[in-house]
């Protein structure tokens, strides 16, 4: 009972996720009730296994991957406003996918993911290199530089898309969308699970790197090895989502910041809270997008963008009040 009280928010979060998951499974053009499943109605079971369960799993995993990626990136860049979105990671992943599509026709999803991961890693490393070289005094400059650098990458992506007539194809993954998730095309997302486990095991290492190089050296932590390992994990998490679902903005920025406001920056405890809130946030957005104009749906990127930017503005205003 005491344990239950100590972790009441986590328990509440998980209960909410479970409840909304059931709702998520029951929403769709074909209405499915529990009795359909028990009576072994073939079509209902197929819809569940091929469409709805994969979709639910994809939503939850993406929520976790994006928010944990954001949390790690914040720590490593030592800046609350840096996330895979403002740190050029997502743009890199997109460029990777389009290059893969242009130069390696008939590419498999796995190879696409590999290219996305490679380019995400490279662009994140370049971004971190720029940040370390220039040593900005104002923390707001860092994400601004990231967004400018990301803009350069993303215009390259657009250019290639126009040149090779891939604009339509490209828009598929430029804007995140769960409606295309089916059994067989989302499994790359499971990559995020080992990443998160590694992040959890080495949480204290990442935390110490977030305290800066001299702190890390003082505590006997190899700053560069941990920093780059962390950035690679962030790139993997991001790439796995970009390849399967597409780009979903804001999650990696907002969720870790909300947790940080209430819980501080102890990474190991935050990883769990961030995962729960991230999954819950995306699940709510997904449900919202599917219900507003039922039986049609709004792409997740749009829903998250609207809800997320409103929350982000609130976050900045709140930060001003406290500063």
């Amino acid at each position, binding site marked *: 009972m005491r344990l239950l009280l100590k972790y009441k928010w986590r328990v509440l979060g998980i209960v909410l996720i479970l409840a909304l998951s059931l709702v998520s499974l029951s929403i769709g053009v074909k209405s499915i009730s529990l009795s359909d499943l028990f009576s072994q109605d073939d079509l209902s079971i197929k819809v569940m296994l091929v469409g709805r369960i994969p979709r639910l799993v994809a939503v939850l995993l993406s929520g976790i991957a994006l928010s944990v990626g954001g949390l790690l990136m914040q720590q490593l860049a*030592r800046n609350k406003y840096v996330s895979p979105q403002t740190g050029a990671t997502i743009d890199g992943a997109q460029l990777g996918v389009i290059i893969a599509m242009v130069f390696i026709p008939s590419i498999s999803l796995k190879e696409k993911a590999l290219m996305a991961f490679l380019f995400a890693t490279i662009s994140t490393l370049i971004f971190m290199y720029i940040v370390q070289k220039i040593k900005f005094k104002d923390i707001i400059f860092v994400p601004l530089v990231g967004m400018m650098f990301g803009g350069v990458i993303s215009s390259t992506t657009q250019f290639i898309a126009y040149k090779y007539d891939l604009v339509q194809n490209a828009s598929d993954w430029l804007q995140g969308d769960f409606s295309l998730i089916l059994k067989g095309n989302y499994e790359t997302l499971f990559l995020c699970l080992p990443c998160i486990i590694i992040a959890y095991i080495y*949480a*204290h290492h990442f935390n110490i790197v977030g305290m*800066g190089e*001299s702190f890390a050296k003082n505590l*006997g932590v*190899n700053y560069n090895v941990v920093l780059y390992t962390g950035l690679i994990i962030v790139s993997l998490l991001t790439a796995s989502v970009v390849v399967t679902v597409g780009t979903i903005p804001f999650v990696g920025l907002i969720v870790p910041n909300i947790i940080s406001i209430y819980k*501080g920056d*102890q990474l190991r405890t935050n990883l769990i809270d961030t995962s729960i809130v991230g999954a819950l946030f995306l699940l709510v957005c997904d449900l919202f997008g599917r219900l507003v104009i039922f039986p049609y749906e709004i792409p997740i990127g749009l829903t998250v963008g609207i809800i997320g930017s409103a929350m982000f503005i609130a976050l900045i205003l709140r930060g001003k009040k406290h500063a």
Partner: protein
Amino acid sequence: MLQVQELSKSFGQKLVVDGVSLEIHKNKITSFIGPNGAGKSTVFNLISRLIMRDEGHIGLDEVDISNWKSNELSKRIAILKQNNSLQLKLTVRELVAFGRFPHSQGRLNEEDETKIDEALSYMELEEFSDKFIDELSGGQRQRAYIAMVIAQDTDYILLDEPLNNLDIKHAMNFMKMIQKLCYELNKTVIIVMHDINFASCYSDYIVAFKEGQIIASGSTEDIMKEHILEEIYEIPFAIHELNGKKICVYY
């Protein structure tokens, strides 16, 4: 035993540390003094391996520090830099717990918890232990960092200008804590200091730096002399004895 021999370091063309040799006395407080840019902090950074030296030898227990494993070294030498502005929102206890990292690698056992409690009570931080460090005053925060270093439980503690941002009262209390640390817990403390009178009142040995070299080193008594201080800072000094302490006046 911490020994430095013929240590040199240059940044680009500029020789910042020029053939520095010194030996640190155990269980004593040693102050590094000297003008800005004299190389004091650089020597600190070299000893803690934050930067690589060009030449020379730094030995801990007769073994050069470059041959120490970084984890082992971090159980022996702790360094606190002058601007440790953390952007992280950690509670005091969480921060102090990170001092145990070299020993526990993040998995705290009972001994670690005891050491953390001891460090907190030593720095009189119990009542703040669940507060976030960014909610503390400058003096409290400085104490939290020192508590982390105490929890790290090293023989050697290097403090780079710890008195910055502290008012006179807190600076004095701070130095008294450092004395307790040194004489009660048998630590060896090296401090970079700008206030010569603080160095005179609270340290056993003084090492004076100028232009990358040591120009004087010895017991506090021997260094607190007008001609030596005048040579270091190139301004006139007058030294008075007050309650058995040497106090210098400069204007």
